[in-house]
């Protein structure tokens, strides 16, 4: 590989293995001191990982599309499978995101008694770092798949009433999807004798083969993203999962990342050919999920559908092959992750007070809980893309990009994409009106206590990040920019 920059300690490996080892230790120490030790350890590990991730973000060289912080060791020489790590502009944002989310999720845990859950979260977090920094396809696949196991357990053991059904569906869907990816990886190895994803980018492939590979990758990542119609696992899993797991599941955009890392650069011609279909699916998702969100009576489910609807905008941004839209899509992945994390945390706060988060049960909370109400309104506004918040940046760029993309359907695509402004506002404001304002529907609302210090701090941090992102998105785009530009230039070249 040319132009690798590495004069660093193996920070990525530390990022990956530190939470995983900590997670195992947390599990081992669960009986010591009534679980207090394990909770401390989990917090410590999350903090250390967070600080390392911040270090990575600071040392990351913007303006370069190259892989940075690289590490490579031959793993299975017979198949030339390497333990190769590295991050570029496409992944660096998600490293930071994962660090922040992990820290918040672990810090949000109040009770000492759920060591198993903390352990699952930490291991998931480590594997997520791995998936975002893997450069070898097998390594990516291993991390991508291994994430299922702790998540499966987190939902299945610590989830809500319907957890068994939800977690089984989640597991089978994701497993089923990735099997196709595995076949695609084997095929690519058979023609190239390597598992390096960067090498595959330059592999000449016939259009038929590209279309088949597209299908395989698409199923894997569309399930994970999730895209219509392969989303059936998502709302159930998000709702039934304990909040921390739901946040990690929804906020780490590994599925959409797969499109950027594997699908688009490896089979660009097929992507171009199938773009109209993908655009149609994405637009359908934006409108369909937005309208479905209107019908929700459960707060978490509403947020879940809202997130999925925004993911439609993300995939739309991928397949417009327009610089503005693609950059918007990457930023939207981050902002949607932040927004959904914040909203799930708020739902959790309501749930601990009301016992559930049915929209019909909690109403008029602003009187009793001004902090919670204020933050919920802020997050709701960020979710519907109010300028000045993180949600605006990506949404704006994708819509602008849609209006300006090159095709005969320019205006139609733009109009349909822009409906997100109206539909998103409709379900969000309706939710706010029923939950925050209006008459008090639950007799106990008056007696409820507002956010405690821990919750307030947690949500304020998220709010501050979202506001900072919204006011100065260049800080984030600057890191991703070069790689996105490089990806677009690469995708534009036919490789038949």
């Amino acid at each position: 590989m040319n132009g690798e920059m590495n004069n660093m300690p193996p920070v990525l490996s530390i990022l990956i293995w530190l939470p995983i080892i900590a997670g195992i230790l947390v599990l081992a120490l669960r009986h010591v001191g009534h679980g207090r030790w394990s909770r401390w350890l989990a917090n410590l590990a999350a903090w250390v990982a967070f600080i390392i991730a911040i270090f990575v973000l600071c040392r990351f060289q913007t303006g370069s599309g190259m892989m940075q912080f690289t590490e490579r060791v031959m793993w299975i020489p017979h198949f030339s499978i390497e333990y190769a790590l590295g991050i570029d502009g496409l992944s660096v944002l998600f490293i930071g995101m994962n660090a922040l989310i992990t820290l918040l999720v672990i810090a949000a845990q109040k009770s000492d008694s759920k060591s198993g859950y903390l352990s699952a979260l930490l291991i998931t977090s480590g594997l997520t770092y791995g998936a975002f920094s893997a450069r070898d396809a097998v390594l990516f696949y291993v991390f991508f798949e291994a994430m299922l196991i702790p998540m499966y357990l987190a939902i299945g053991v610590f989830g809500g009433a319907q957890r068994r059904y939800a977690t089984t569906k989640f597991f089978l869907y994701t497993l089923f999807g990735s099997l196709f990816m595995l076949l695609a990886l084997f095929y690519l190895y058979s023609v190239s004798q390597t598992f390096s994803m960067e090498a595959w980018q330059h592999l000449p492939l016939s259009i038929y083969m590209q279309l088949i590979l597209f299908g395989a990758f698409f199923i894997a990542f569309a399930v994970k993203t999730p895209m219509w119609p392969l989303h059936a696992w998502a709302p159930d899993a998000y709702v039934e999962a304990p909040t921390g797991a739901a946040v990690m599941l929804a906020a780490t955009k590994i599925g959409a990342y797969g499109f950027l890392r594997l699908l688009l650069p490896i089979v660009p011609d097929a992507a171009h050919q199938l773009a109209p279909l993908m655009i149609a699916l994405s637009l359908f998702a934006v409108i369909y999920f937005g309208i479905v969100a209107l019908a929700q009576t459960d707060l978490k489910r509403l947020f879940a559908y809202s997130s999925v609807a925004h993911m439609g905008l993300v995939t739309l941004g991928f397949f417009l092959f327009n610089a503005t839209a693609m950059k918007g899509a990457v930023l939207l992945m981050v902002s949607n992750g932040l927004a959904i994390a914040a909203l799930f945390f708020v739902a959790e706060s309501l749930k601990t007070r009301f016992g559930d988060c049915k929209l019909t049960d909690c109403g008029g909370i602003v009187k009793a809980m001004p902090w919670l109400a204020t933050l919920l309104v802020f997050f709701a506004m960020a979710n519907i893309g109010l300028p000045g918040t993180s949600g605006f940046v990506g949404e704006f760029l994708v819509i602008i990009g849609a209006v300006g993309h090159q095709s005969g359907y320019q205006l139609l695509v733009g109009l349909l994409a822009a409906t997100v402004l109206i539909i998103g506002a409709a379900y969000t404001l309706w939710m706010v009106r029923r939950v925050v304002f209006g008459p008090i529907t639950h007799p106990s609302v008056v007696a409820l206590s507002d956010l405690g210090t821990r919750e307030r701090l947690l949500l304020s941090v998220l709010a501050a990040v979202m506001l900072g992102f919204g006011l100065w998105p260049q800080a984030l785009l600057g890191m991703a920019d070069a790689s996105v530009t490089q990806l677009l230039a690469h995708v534009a070249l036919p490789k038949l």
Partner: protein
Amino acid sequence: MMLALIPLLPLLAALFAGFFGRRVPRCWSHWVCCAAVGISFLLSANVLYEVATLWPSTGIQSNSVTLYTWLDLGSTKLTVGFLIDPLSALMMVVVTLVSFLVHVYTIGYMKDDPGYARFFAYIAFFTFSMLMLVMSNNFLQMFFGWEGVGLASYLLIGFWYTRPSATKAGMKAFLMNRVGDFGFIIGIGLLFAALGTLDFKEIFGRVDELRGLNVSLWPGVEWSLLTVACIGLFIGAMGKSAQVPLHSWLPDSMEGPTPISALIHAATMVTAGIFMVARMSPVFEGSDTALSFIIIIGATTAITMALLGLVQNDIKRVIAYSTLSQLGYMTVALGASAYSAAIFHLMTHAFFKALLFLAAGSVIIALHHEQDMRKMGGLRKRMPITYVTAVIGAWALAGLPPFAGFFSKEPIIEAAHSATVTGHTYAYWALMLGVFLTACYTFRMIFMTFHGASRYGESKSDAKRGAHKKAHGVTHEAHHDVHESPKVVTIPLIVLAICSVFAGIFCVEPVLIGDYFGAAIHGNYVAHPAMAELHAEWHGILDYFLNALLSAPLWLALAGIATAWYFTLSSPKSADRLARSLGGVYNALKNNYYVDAFYERVFVRGARSLASVFMQGGEQFLTEGVLVQSTSQLVRWGAQGLRYLQTGYLYHYAFAMALGLLVLMTWWGIL
């Protein structure tokens, strides 16, 4: 940087009042907010002074400053920055002045409200957003302010959040504005797609490149990009400036406390759309189709909303419908390419409309939150300052000489007359009739409120208001000592009254006829001669007066006042008779032409039904039922079928082995 202080001061004040307002004495909130907006006003006035007096001699036409780069897209930089020119300088002064007076007034009006600090935080934020909007030098920041005022109005309209009607009205305002934003973002997107920039000056300089470009909806259906972009932008203006059919949020916004009605209607919200179109005048000039669209929408708004003003009994609703109608006038001016006439009317309207709202608010607090004009009357004696200022406002609104409205409305009618775009004749007649109606509903309000016998304290049956009054801890006995409002209320009234009197006579010559706007507003005077004709016909103030005496609008306005007098004071019974004989028409007017009912039935219920169809048909039946359940069913059946293969009998396996071997050998044999 001084310029940045102008919007930032209100923002900082808003943050202070919002976060610390509940922990410090409440007077801190109003001192901080009033001071911040007051300083903003002084700084803006200084900017206006420089622009108006120093710039012409030095030849500066505009001053564009960039604060920071928000996003660097490679091909272009999206920035936050200010464009100071005569247009924005004038708007800044109008916004900060009216806002400052509303801030002062609020001290008196919201005195007893538990959400005192919160209210100040919201209105200061409102001012900040509007300043960001008018001062911006690019579409991105304008959109930022655009949505910011949307958010502020949402919060303020729903300020009394325990009232379901208030939260509903807030939500309605936000959603309707979002429909407008939908068009706005399409317009921005098209301009960006064609020119690759969002910077105003660059767009204005390269407008010619847009001519001849097309945009296709789908293959085969192509429209002129400029027209689609302009109509898109204008749809945004329709949402903000409440043009038919996106108007119905504005009357409902009366659910908010009165000071914000003044703010929304005069300075910080509905003017945004008008301002934006004037700001984009070089772009709009390029599309006659868009101008036609604008003039027709404006005329329709002017006439239909004026008719609604006639039948309202809520004092604030009368003024609200008058705002709608006056916004229609401004829009017609925009459509006629008389942009400076629109901005001039915007300015005078800001003064007298704020005045009328604050006067109405003064009456409302004097009567302990009574808004029904049928329960007012005869307040002239008890509230002399409010009365006099309200009459000045009404006089100005009706467009009677020599007050502000007279100077700003006549040119609009003239412009509609001499415009050339399709629909201008319709607009001309609509505005003419509108003059009569405006005078009629305005003075109906004045007569019902301040003249005749006093009717307050008579009826106590209104349950909703009763409950509200209880919340304010006021008993009905208090009705008997109705008195003039305190100084913090009357002083803003007096200041606004002075503006309403003199803003017209002193500003008409420089702002409208003179070359104040210079290059800030760009009209194509050859193709759209309205402004040129206005210039040609101008022979000084005196001549203008004399001409007015002979022209129709003045007499129509006087006829309107006479009609109002007849139906309210002289013979109130005949009004009821007329209403009865007009039955269906009257009911249609009473119900806002059933537009609200239509929206409720089609959009609200339609969306909910669609949502439940998608939920049940799409999610539960198709996705969950067919895709998930039937797959698992298939697997189950498949497994049951396959189970028979695993019989456990040795001879079955032996048979299968032999068969398999045979098949394989055949296969190889063929190969």
